[in-house]
């Protein structure tokens, strides 16, 4: 074991570079590369604002995942939480005929409920976060599929003020800034305040660094784990609502890869998989790289299968760059 780690592994210099300031260089290279390759199709404001929109709900969920990973945990059920929220919302508003506000209220309950379930299993039953959220994610996925027997729900024209709901994802602030992107920036700011200025933020970093020492210093590990999972699921829930407001459908197949792609984005951005290390970069750079990547791949006309394959390989590269040396 020890001998192998001393040996120089090929790839490693490139990966070291990626781990350092490399991610920002990669981001700039991607922008330059795609501007040359696709020209005005890529650089047009409509495409860029489209990327910004797509990045924003993905990024809102990424904040929660970042927090979980920093605290030494994992949450791979975020995608299914977002999907379940969307399904609950569209079911309430079409099949149950509720008005907008009641449907919003009910679907916003999904996040805290999911967070409490995850947090309870991880903090109170001492199940490891990864396998716990993997199984709860499976449960939420099946629940989302049950809601409308595996079928998509189309919201269009169900209630009078549905346009109001759509506008949270489709409108622009001050005529140019996409509203969800503004919300994303506000959430990032909130994350920064929480992580650097509050006691909770300090405790989350401490627990991620070394759980046992944190417990010995009198920090409440269980409570903090519960709170991080709660925050993570609530953010995923909000992200799910933004997505539904954009697409106008409750789609049980949506977001299924989020659990892994979000982890990829955050890890590419420099958050340490083992916890205790990570900052804003993890969200902004990682999410932008991921958003640009999927934009480039779809502009290149690759099928969804190829996109999954390439995303998986990029994720692998990101994780390899952080492996224990």
């Amino acid at each position, binding site marked *: 074991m020890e001998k192998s780690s001393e040996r120089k592994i090929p790839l490693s210099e490139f990966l070291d570079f990626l781990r350092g300031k490399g991610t920002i260089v990669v981001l700039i290279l991607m922008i330059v590369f795609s501007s040359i390759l696709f020209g005005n199709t890529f650089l047009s404001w409509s495409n860029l604002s489209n990327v910004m929109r797509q990045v924003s709900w993905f990024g809102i969920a990424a904040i929660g995942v970042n927090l979980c990973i920093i605290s030494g945990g994992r949450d791979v059920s975020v995608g299914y939480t977002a999907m379940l929220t969307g399904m609950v919302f569209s079911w309430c508003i079409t099949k149950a005929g509720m008005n907008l506000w009641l449907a919003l209220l009910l679907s916003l309950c999904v996040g805290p409920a999911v967070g409490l379930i995850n947090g309870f299993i991880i903090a109170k039953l001492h199940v490891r976060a990864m396998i716990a959220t993997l199984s709860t994610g499976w449960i939420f996925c099946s629940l989302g599929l049950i809601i409308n027997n595996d079928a998509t729900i189309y919201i269009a024209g169900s209630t009078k003020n549905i346009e109001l709901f759509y506008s949270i994802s489709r409108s622009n602030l001050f005529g140019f800034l996409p509203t969800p992107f503004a919300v994303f920036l506000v959430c990032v700011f909130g994350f920064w305040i929480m992580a650097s200025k509050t006691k909770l933020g300090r405790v989350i970093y401490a627990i991620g660094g070394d759980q046992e020492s944190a*417990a010995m210093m009198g920090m409440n590990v269980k409570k903090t784990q519960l709170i991080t999972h709660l925050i993570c699921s609530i953010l995923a829930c909000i992200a799910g609502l933004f997505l539904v407001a954009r697409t106008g459908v409750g789609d049980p197949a949506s977001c299924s890869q989020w659990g892994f792609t979000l982890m990829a984005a955050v890890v590419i951005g420099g958050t340490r998989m083992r916890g205790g290390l990570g900052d804003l970069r993890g969200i902004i750079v990682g999410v932008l790289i991921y958003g640009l990547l999927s934009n480039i791949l779809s502009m290149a006309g690759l099928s969804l*299968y*190829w996109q999954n394959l390439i995303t998986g390989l990029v994720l692998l590269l990101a994780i390899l760059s952080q492996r224990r040396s």
Partner: protein
Amino acid sequence: MQKKTLTSKAGTAGHFAIDNAAALMCVVLILYNALFTKNFVQINSLWNLIAQTTSLMFVTMGMTLVISAGCTDLSVGAIMAISSSICGEYIVSGGNQAAAIFLALGISLVCGLINGTLVARYKLQPLVAMLVARMVYRAAAQIYTSGIARNVSSSIGAFIAQKRLFSFRLPVIVIPMILVIFLTWFIAKKTSFGKHVEAVGNNQRTAYLCGISVAGTIVAVYLFSSVLAGFGGLIELFRSGATDANTIGLDYEMSAIAAVTIGGTSMRGGKARIYGSIAGALLMTLITMTVNFSNITYQMANILKGVVIVFALALHSIERS
């Protein structure tokens, strides 16, 4: 940090229940079906139950060894998709059946080698590495078949899937299943390799200091698991008579993890319980069958299996503390 819990108070009955949770749940479900499902108590239902479990049993046996080595293999479902697509496409294009089977198993071995290398050589966390592998392999299978389902008819397939032997109508498919159970039991309990696997699962550092090749053991375990997953994919292919890279093997890894954990093998590794895993795999099929018989949507079965995993893991952690 952890309080004294259940097991210290509960006596031997509690231990017995925890150790045999899977078998007890099987008995409960069988009784339930015997009471409430028409025509359940027949020799044919038994054969159906076992025949439907076959592919999951293959995957579960591999998973038992992987988990007892302290790792997890989430890519088995995707490997099933790969092996069945390759074999199916090869047969459809007019190739030799035996060659198709060997090709599919060979590719499964390559996948296992990649998995083992990622975990043993590059020291990635098994769950994270396998999530990526699952995504990549499934996408590869979908790209290979362009996501199109195809009918595959083959003489081997018809023989394995439909042939019944003897007067008590024993399905042929049961024979490889018994062989693989015996093989896994033999490897895990009767060879030094089995001991190495448990040692690595218990404590990698100690195993290394005892002169066990940790990396080699982990790679071997992943190879074993993927080749069994490849077999599982072929069985699914022959049973259904069609390849479909989108659905074959979907969620099998989760069912297998549920079967293994409820069977008493701890996710932390160090102990392989073959009997428990057999009962666990039967339990998974029983859950699916019960849900089908009761006219509930099949997704309910997945929810129940998810609950079984959480329940089993909670039991393990209570037992430990």
